[in-house]
């Protein structure tokens, strides 16, 4: 818990009600949730980058007249021709992009709710509460 000493003028005499406590708890939950979501979003973005690189490699196959690539499936590398490889890669990419879109939507929702709560809580308690660590 961080404690900063307020001047007498900044002190809020507003009583904390149960409803306030619930709002504070909700904010806290959303905050934790948001961190998790942001981590997931970053991981997915990195995965999408990799898969897009793989796509380019598979495309080059056509140009270079290669007849197979090695797909990393589990702990083995499987020889796959262009069709198999490009299907695999594009399916994977679509799946990742869909997941990423979901996560971004949830992030926006959480941030929206937190913003509303901040307004309410800062409105009542002023500098007696800190919601921006």
């Amino acid at each position, binding site marked *: *818990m961080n*404690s900063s000493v307020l001047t007498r003028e900044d002190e809020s005499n507003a009583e*904390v009600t*149960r409803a306030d*406590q*619930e709002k*504070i*708890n*909700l904010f*806290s*939950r*959303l905050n*934790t*949730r948001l961190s998790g979501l942001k981590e997931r979003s970053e991981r997915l973005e990195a995965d999408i980058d990799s898969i897009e690189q793989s796509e380019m490699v598979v495309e080059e196959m056509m140009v270079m007249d290669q007849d197979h690539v*090695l797909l990393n*499936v*589990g*702990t*083995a*590398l*499987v*020889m796959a021709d262009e069709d*198999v490889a490009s299907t695999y890669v594009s399916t994977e990419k679509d799946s990742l992009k869909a997941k990423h879109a979901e996560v971004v939507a949830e992030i926006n929702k*959480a941030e929206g*709710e937190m913003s509303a709560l901040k307004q309410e809580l800062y409105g009542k308690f002023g500098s007696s509460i800190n919601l921006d660590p």
Partner: protein
Amino acid sequence: MAAKPTVAHRGIPQADFIDNPNAFIAQHKNAEEALTSLNEQYSKYKFMDAQLIRQKTSIAGRIPDLEASLKTIQFYQQKREETTVNHEIADGVYAKATVPAVENVSIWLGCSTMVEYPIDDAEALLKRNLAGARAQVAGLDSDLDYLKEQITTLEVSLARVYNADVLRRRQTRA
């Protein structure tokens, strides 16, 4: 995400909201004792929190492996024909192998046991295990959410009781 607090979770006591800090202090010998009592509760919750996080990390750690295994099995399920595979025989060293259409796979069950399953049964088994692990993680997440709520309530209570005491001392001095 629910706005209302969730019901009591297995083994996690609810931290009661203090309607009136001064009344709460009156229930104890003095403000210091009231704060000590709250701090004790707080430490217990923090301990539980650390425990649950450890459990979650352990179970969640199994999930990526399960997902990778499942993906491999599903790949071979689709490709019911001979495949040439570069298999890892040592760190960074691969050897080519020709794998006939996969009928059975062997699954490591732990405790030095490996069991052979027809590929479709293996897929079903891994799917169940993966779903089980995910459900356990979800349960722990729910517990952690509830715990966080109790901890936050307690932190606010500690601040309010402390402040109520500061105000009271100020008034008696005035």
